[in-house]
C-alpha cells in the first residue's frame, strides 16, 4: 500500500503536501474537481497545523477496498489541542481572525472526516475521499 508521510513546519510544506496529494489523486484517476477538493482540504488542515500547533505531520495513503479506490489524509500535531471541537467545526468560528471555513469546509470537501483532539496533547484528523 502506497503511503507518503512528511512533516509540516512551514508554508512551503503546505504547498509540497497538497501538490503531492494532487499528483497521487490524479494517478488514481480522480476527476479534476476531486483533485482540487483534496488539495484544498489538505491546504486547510496543514495550515491549521502551522498556525496553531507550529508543527506536525501529514500522511497521504492510497486506499483500496473491494475494488474501490480512495485516498486518505492523516494530519497530526502535538499542539495545544482544540477546547471545543464542535465549535471549531462551525462555519465562521475562528480564534485567529480567519474566515473560520477551514475545518467545516475540509469536512464537506471529503467523504469522511474524523477529528480527535485532546487539550494539551494535540489534534489528529483523518479524512477520506473515494473515487466516484
Amino acid at each position, binding site marked *: 500500500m502506497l503511503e507518503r508521510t512528511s512533516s509540516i513546519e512551514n*508554508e*512551503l510544506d503546505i504547498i509540497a503536501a497538497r501538490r503531492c496529494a494532487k499528483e497521487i489523486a490524479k494517478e488514481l484517476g480522480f476527476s*479534476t*474537481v476531486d*483533485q*482540487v477538493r483534496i488539495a484544498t482540504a489538505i491546504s*486547510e488542515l496543514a*495550515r491549521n497545523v502551522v498556525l496553531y500547533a507550529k508543527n506536525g505531520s501529514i500522511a497521504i495513503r492510497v486506499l483500496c477496498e473491494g475494488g474501490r479506490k480512495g485516498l486518505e489524509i492523516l494530519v497530526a500535531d502535538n499542539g495545544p489541542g482544540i477546547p471545543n471541537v464542535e465549535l471549531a467545526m462551525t462555519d465562521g468560528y475562528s480564534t485567529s481572525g480567519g474566515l473560520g471555513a477551514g475545518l467545516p*469546509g475540509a469536512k464537506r*470537501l471529503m467523504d469522511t472526516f474524523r477529528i480527535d483532539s485532546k487539550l494539551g496533547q494535540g489534534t489528529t484528523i483523518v479524512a477520506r475521499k473515494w473515487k466516484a
Partner: protein
Amino acid sequence: MHQQVPILKIDDFWIASVQGSLHDQDVIEFKEALLNKIMQPKSRGLIIDLTVLDVVDSFVTKTLIDIRGLAGLMGVPVVIAGMSPAVAITLVEMGLNLEGVDTALNLQKGLDKLRNAGKER
C-alpha cells in the same frame, strides 16, 4: 522559491496575474503590493487574474475579500477573473461564495466590465 506576482497597468487599470501556487508569505506581500499600486491617483480598477492558480483555500479567499474591501474604501472597483470550474465548485462547497465580489470569465471581459462601470459612474 519566492514568487512575485507581476502587476501590470493598462490605461488606468491594474492587472495582477497570479501564477501557480502562492505560499502564505507571497499572498501577504502580494496584497501589500496591490494596495500600494491602487493607492496611486487615477487608479480606475483592479483585475486579479486567477486563471493559473491551482488551489484557492480560505486563506487566499480571505485575502481576496480583504483586497476588495480596502480597494472599495479607496473607490477602486475589483474584478476577479479566470477562476477555473474546479476551483469555483470547491469554493462553493466550502461555503465560500465570495459574496459581493465582482467576477469575469477572463481578463478581457474583466477589463470590459471595469470600463463599463467607469462609464456608468
